[in-house]
């Protein structure tokens, strides 16, 4: 299957399916759209897309980066048709079938992006990780706290940090989040790190950093410098 993008009528069909899925969770995805010349158009040079299970958000972002290079395509953040086509192509990964044969669709922006909304663009399950990967292409490992989960999982680390432009675009803060929340030995998020309540949760970290942003030039600081000025409980958690 070649890389394509949904046209406006293709987007309408995908939207209709997502409407239907909320009523009938066993509905089969409209995969026929993917290669339809009526509902899609080629994106970039004709390039084969591999549909396989990617274990992490990093793995799928890396694959997409290679795919776009092969297709000689500079993917625009605002190319809704392209990102929606990809979400449909990977729908079994992004909205997997559960044990009872049904799917649990999340909010629409997980599959059809809203790139013009700074409150929601990062929630798309492919565009979100891809943008984080692209911003950290020189060293994706620094953003592992936001890239280590499976592509269909959107935890509170992603929600709290990716939703704030001044945090997600800052390399030192990405490195700090990874130091705090990611266990590089197990390649998993540390226990208790993605919760919503507590002294070291991402929500609290984001609030503290947003306050620091009024006092210091955070883009000029290193992850170590940031860690030193964080409340003590964060420093303890970083060593756990």
């Amino acid at each position, binding site marked *: 299957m070649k890389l394509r993008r949904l046209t406006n009528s293709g987007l309408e069909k995908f939207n209709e399916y997502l409407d239907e899925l909320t009523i009938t969770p066993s509905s089969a995805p409209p995969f026929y759209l993917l290669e339809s010349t009526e509902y899609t158009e080629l994106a970039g040079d004709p390039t084969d897309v591999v549909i396989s299970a990617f274990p992490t958000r990093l793995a799928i972002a890396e694959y997409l980066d290679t795919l776009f290079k092969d297709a000689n395509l500079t993917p625009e953040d605002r190319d809704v048709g392209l990102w929606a086509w990809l979400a449909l192509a990977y729908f079994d990964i992004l909205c997997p079938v559960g044990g009872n044969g049904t799917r649990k669709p999340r909010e629409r922006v997980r599959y059809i992006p809203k790139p013009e909304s700074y409150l929601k663009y990062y929630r798309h399950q492919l565009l979100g990780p891809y943008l984080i990967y*692209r911003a950290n292409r020189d060293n994706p490992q620094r953003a592992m706290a936001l890239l280590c989960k499976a592509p269909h999982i959107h935890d509170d680390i992603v929600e709290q940090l990716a939703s704030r432009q001044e945090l997600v675009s800052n390399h030192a803060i990405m490195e700090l989040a990874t130091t705090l929340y990611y266990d590089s030995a197990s390649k998993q998020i540390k226990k208790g790190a993605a919760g919503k309540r507590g002294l070291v949760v991402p929500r609290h970290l984001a609030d503290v950093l947003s306050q620091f942003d009024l006092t210091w030039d955070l883009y000029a600081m290193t992850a170590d*410098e940031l860690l030193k000025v964080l409340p003590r409980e964060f420093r303890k958690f970083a060593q756990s």
Partner: protein
Amino acid sequence: MIRRFNYTNRIRISRSDVQIILDKYHGELWFNADLSKIVTAYELPPEGLVFVEAYRQTNWMRFDYGTVGKLTPASDRILKQFDSSEDIRFRVKVTLSGDGHRLLAEADGIPLISPDEQESGRTSLLPVKPHQLGEQIYQVDFSNEWPRLLVNSEAGNYRDICRHPAFMALAYPAIFREVLTQIIVVGEHDDDADMTDWRSQWIKFAKVLPGVGDLPDVTNEEDSRNWINDAVSAFAKRIGVRGKFDEFWR
């Protein structure tokens, strides 16, 4: 989210004191920044380091502008990380080196001005963008830092739609009401002095319309809605809604 306090008396630079103008250089996006007012209008130390940052979503670029005492724009000001100029915002920061990167002054959310806007000397209170809206013709979008009017890109040329007397007569007053309702009734915002805040700019714009006057207590919804009614009525008169309606209702 917790409230943010300005413990260190960081100076808030007014957006209106900074101009970032879009330019093209060999087909690439490029900008020029006029920061001269920062030097004259604010008490900042000459050794303060000046930076201009461009950002949108996960994209961010920083440009060195020298010091307050000697502004020296970075020679390369190509916005290479951005695929279009749409919705790029800028920050200007003044920091003190050697003091833990302390922030002395900042202006945030500065829009990029096109050469046309610069020529007219005005920026829009409600930028208009074409957008896929299905069956809707327009939508006021509050999901960004600054509200925008989205116009259905499939309904026709969005600029022509906005200039059409039918749209102006029927949609403009409704849009004006929607924005004021969002600011005053939903947000209970009552400040019209902070010209770096879009909400204050809108209130100021409404207040100076003939017969509108000062805002009531915004916690009283009925009084707020009455004030908005007066403002919409004055706005409709200002843009000649009846005449525009008559132009197409024949």
